[in-house]
C-alpha cells in the first residue's frame, strides 16, 4: 500500500519530469500566464538564444499592470511612453511567438489571475505559473500555482518546465462558521496576522475546514491569493462540486467526454486520511472578526474593534519595524481604528476584483453616498466582470453613490498606471499589499474586505461594516 499523500504531494508527483539524486526536480508546467511587466526580458532572452516557445498553446498573455483604467484607453496616447512600449512589446511577443493573447481592446482583457479562471484556463490538478506573486490565486481550484521571476519565465517559455525542489506541507484549517459580515478576505488576513509574513516560507499551504468549504470559488480565490503574503510558495484548496460546477462550460475547460474523464481524475485530488503535514495552524471561523491592517506589512492585522498598537507591544526586530510603520502611517498608539479617517477607497485587484466582491461593495453602497472629500475608485478585475456588473445594476449603484467606475486592470493595487495615492493620502483598499509606497509615494494603505472598504467610503473613516448591516435590506 502506498503512503497517504497530501493534495500537494499528489499534484507534485504527477508533474515530475526528472528527479536528480539531490531531490532537484524538473517539474512540468501545464499553464503559463504572462503579463507585460515581467516578460519582456524573458522574450528577449529567447530571441538572443534563437529559442522558441515550447508550448505556445499552454501560454496565455494579457496586459494588466500598466494599462490605464479610464475610458477611451485604446488610444495609446493615454499611456506614458514607457508603459506604451511595454504593452506594445507584449503585443509583439504574443504575435511573434504565437501565444494566446487578450489585448487591451478585448472585452476578455483583465487582471491575469481573474482572466485565467474566468476563461477556463485554470483547472484542478494543474501546475500554473506566472511572473507574478499572486499566481497563488489559482490554488483555489486545487491547482499548484505560484509566482516566478523573469529568468524562470524564460525557462518555462523555453522548456515548459521549472527547476524546483519540493516544499514542505502546511495545513491551515478554519473550523466552524463565519459570523455575518466576515468574509474570505478576513480569513486570509487573519491567517497572516496569526502566522506572520514569513510563517509560510518553505511551505505549500492547504486551506481546509468547514469555513473554507462554505466559501464560494471566488472567496476561495481571495484566500489563496494572499498565501504569498504569508510567505508560502502556494496555497491550495481541494476541488469539490463547487469547483467542478464553476469550471464546467468555461471557454477553455474540457467538454463532453473529455470533461467526464477530467472529472473522474479531479475527484481523486484530496489529501488522504493520515497524510503528514509538517506544520498545522487552526483558526476558529466564528472567532474571526472583520479585520483591517494598521501598518506597512500584511501581518499588521487587527480586528476593526481594536486600537492602534504601540511599538512596545512587539519584540525583536519587529519593534523598530512597528515604529517605522506607525510613523509612516501617521497613527498614534492607542487610538481607535474606527477613528482613523480616510481620503480614498480602492475596490478591485486580483484579490477582490471579482463579481461577488463588487456585489458585496454595492450592497453597502446602495442608497448611500460616499462621504464628502473621499474619492472612491471601483475597478473590475476583467472586462467581463465589468459587463456583468453593469448588467446587474451594480455600476449604477457605484455611480449613484459617487464612485468612479473604471475599466479593468491592476490599477491602484500597485499603482503602476496613473491610479495612485498622493503623499500621506490614506486609502481603505481591497488589495493585497500595504507596503510603503505601494499605492503611491508616501501613500498610506489599510487592507480590508470589499464590504469594509465600502463602509469606510460612506463614513469617511475605518468602520465596522456590521454596524451598517442592520440598516441593509
Amino acid at each position, binding site marked *: 500500500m502506498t503512503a497517504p499523500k497530501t493534495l500537494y504531494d499528489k499534484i507534485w508527483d504527477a508533474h515530475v*519530469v*526528472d528527479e*536528480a539524486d*539531490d531531490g*532537484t526536480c*524538473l517539474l*512540468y508546467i501545464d499553464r503559463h500566464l504572462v503579463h507585460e*511587466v*515581467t516578460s519582456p*526580458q524573458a522574450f*528577449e*532572452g529567447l530571441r538572443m*538564444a534563437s*529559442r522558441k516557445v515550447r508550448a505556445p498553446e499552454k501560454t496565455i498573455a494579457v496586459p494588466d499592470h*500598466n494599462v490605464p483604467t479610464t475610458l477611451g484607453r485604446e488610444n495609446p496616447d493615454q499611456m506614458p511612453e*514607457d*508603459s506604451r*512600449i*511595454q504593452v506594445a512589446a507584449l503585443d509583439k511577443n504574443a504575435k511573434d511567438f504565437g501565444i494566446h493573447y487578450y489585448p487591451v481592446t478585448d472585452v476578455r482583457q483583465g487582471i491575469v489571475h481573474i482572466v485565467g479562471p474566468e476563461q477556463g484556463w485554470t483547472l484542478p*490538478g*494543474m501546475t500554473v505559473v506566472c*511572473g*507574478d*506573486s499572486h499566481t497563488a490565486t489559482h490554488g483555489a481550484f486545487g491547482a499548484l500555482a*505560484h*509566482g*516566478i*521571476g*523573469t*529568468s*524562470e519565465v524564460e*525557462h518555462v517559455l*523555453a*522548456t515548459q*518546465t521549472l*527547476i524546483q*525542489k519540493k516544499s514542505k506541507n502546511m495545513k491551515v484549517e478554519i473550523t466552524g462558521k463565519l459570523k455575518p459580515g466576515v468574509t474570505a478576505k478576513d480569513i486570509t488576513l487573519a491567517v497572516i496576522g496569526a502566522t506572520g*509574513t*514569513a510563517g509560510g*516560507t518553505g511551505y505549500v499551504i492547504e486551506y481546509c475546514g468547514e469555513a473554507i468549504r462554505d466559501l464560494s470559488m471566488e472567496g476561495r480565490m481571495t484566500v489563496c491569493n494572499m498565501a*504569498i503574503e504569508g*510567505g*508560502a510558495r502556494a496555497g491550495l484548496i481541494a476541488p469539490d462540486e463547487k469547483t467542478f460546477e464553476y469550471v464546467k462550460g468555461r471557454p477553455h475547460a474540457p467538454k463532453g467526454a*473529455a*470533461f467526464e*474523464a*477530467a472529472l473522474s*481524475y479531479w475527484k481523486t485530488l484530496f489529501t488522504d486520511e493520515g497524510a503528514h503535514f509538517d506544520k498545522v495552524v487552526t483558526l476558529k471561523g466564528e472567532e474571526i472578526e472583520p479585520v483591517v491592517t494598521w501598518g506597512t506589512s500584511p501581518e499588521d492585522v487587527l480586528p476593526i474593534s481594536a486600537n492602534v498598537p504601540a511599538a512596545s507591544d512587539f519584540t525583536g*526586530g*519587529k519593534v*523598530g*519595524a512597528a515604529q517605522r510603520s506607525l510613523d509612516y502611517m501617521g497613527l498614534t498608539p492607542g487610538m481607535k481604528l474606527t477613528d482613523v479617517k480616510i481620503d480614498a477607497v480602492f475596490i478591485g485587484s486580483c484579490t477582490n476584483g471579482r463579481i461577488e466582491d463588487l456585489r458585496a461593495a454595492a450592497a453597502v453602497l446602495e442608497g448611500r453616498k460616499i462621504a464628502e472629500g473621499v474619492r472612491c475608485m471601483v475597478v473590475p478585475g476583467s472586462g467581463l466582470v465589468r459587463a456583468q456588473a453593469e448588467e446587474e445594476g451594480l455600476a449604477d449603484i457605484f455611480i449613484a453613490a459617487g464612485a468612479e467606475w473604471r475599466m479593468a486592470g491592476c490599477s491602484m493595487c*500597485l499603482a*503602476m498606471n496613473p491610479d495612485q495615492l498622493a503623499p500621506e493620502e490614506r486609502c481603505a483598499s481591497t488589495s493585497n*499589499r500595504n*507596503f*510603503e*509606497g*505601494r499605492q503611491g*509615494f508616501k501613500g498610506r494603505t489599510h487592507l480590508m474586505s470589499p464590504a469594509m472598504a465600502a463602509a469606510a467610503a460612506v463614513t469617511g473613516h475605518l468602520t465596522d461594516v456590521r454596524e451598517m448591516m442592520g440598516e441593509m435590506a
Partner: protein
Amino acid sequence: MEKFTKLTGIAAPMPLVNIDTDMIIPKQFLKTIKRSGLGVNLFDEMRYDRNGNEIPDFVLNQPAYREAEILVAGDNFGCGSSREHAPWALKDFGIKCVISTSFADIFFNNCFKNGILPVVLPAEAVTYLMEDATKGANARLTVDLEEQTVTASDGKTFSFEVDPFRKHCLMNGLDDIGLSLEKVSAIDAYESRAKTQFPWL
C-alpha cells in the same frame, strides 16, 4: 551568468525586518524592457527625497557604504512581489551577496539566477555580522561559497548551508535553460505520457 566563488567586500547593515521588493525597487522602475541600469534606483524611496536628492542618513548614501558589495539585512528580506528587477537592481548597484536570517521564496530563487548569493544564517550570527558591518568600510566580510563560510573582520567564521545544485550553478555561472534542455528527451517522454493520462490538457 557571472560566477560567484569568493568575495571580500564592504557590508552595509540594514537591520529593518521585512524589507520588501517594493522598497528594493519601486514599481515606477518596472516599466523597463531591459535588465540593466536599475542600480541607480535601488531602494529609491529610502535613498532619495522627492526632488531626487540623496537622503544622507540612508546607509548606501554614507561614504563608507557607497561601494558595498554585501548587505546584512533583517528577517524575511525580499518579501512581496516576484519582480526580478529586485536582484537586477542589487546586482547593478554592485551587491553580490545578501545575508539574513530568512528570505522570501521567490526573491531567494531569483538571486541565484543572477549571480547573487543569498546567505541564511542563525539570528546570533546575523546580529554579529550586522554589528561588524556598522564599523563601515573598515569591516570587510569574506564570503566563500566553496567553503560555505562567512568570515567577519575579526576572523570569526560562520558556516552556512546552500543547496548543492544551486552552489554548482553559481560557482560555474551555469545557465539553467541550457541545463534543462539537455533533458529534452525526458520532457518529450513526459508530454507523451501526459497526453494519455490527462488528455483534456
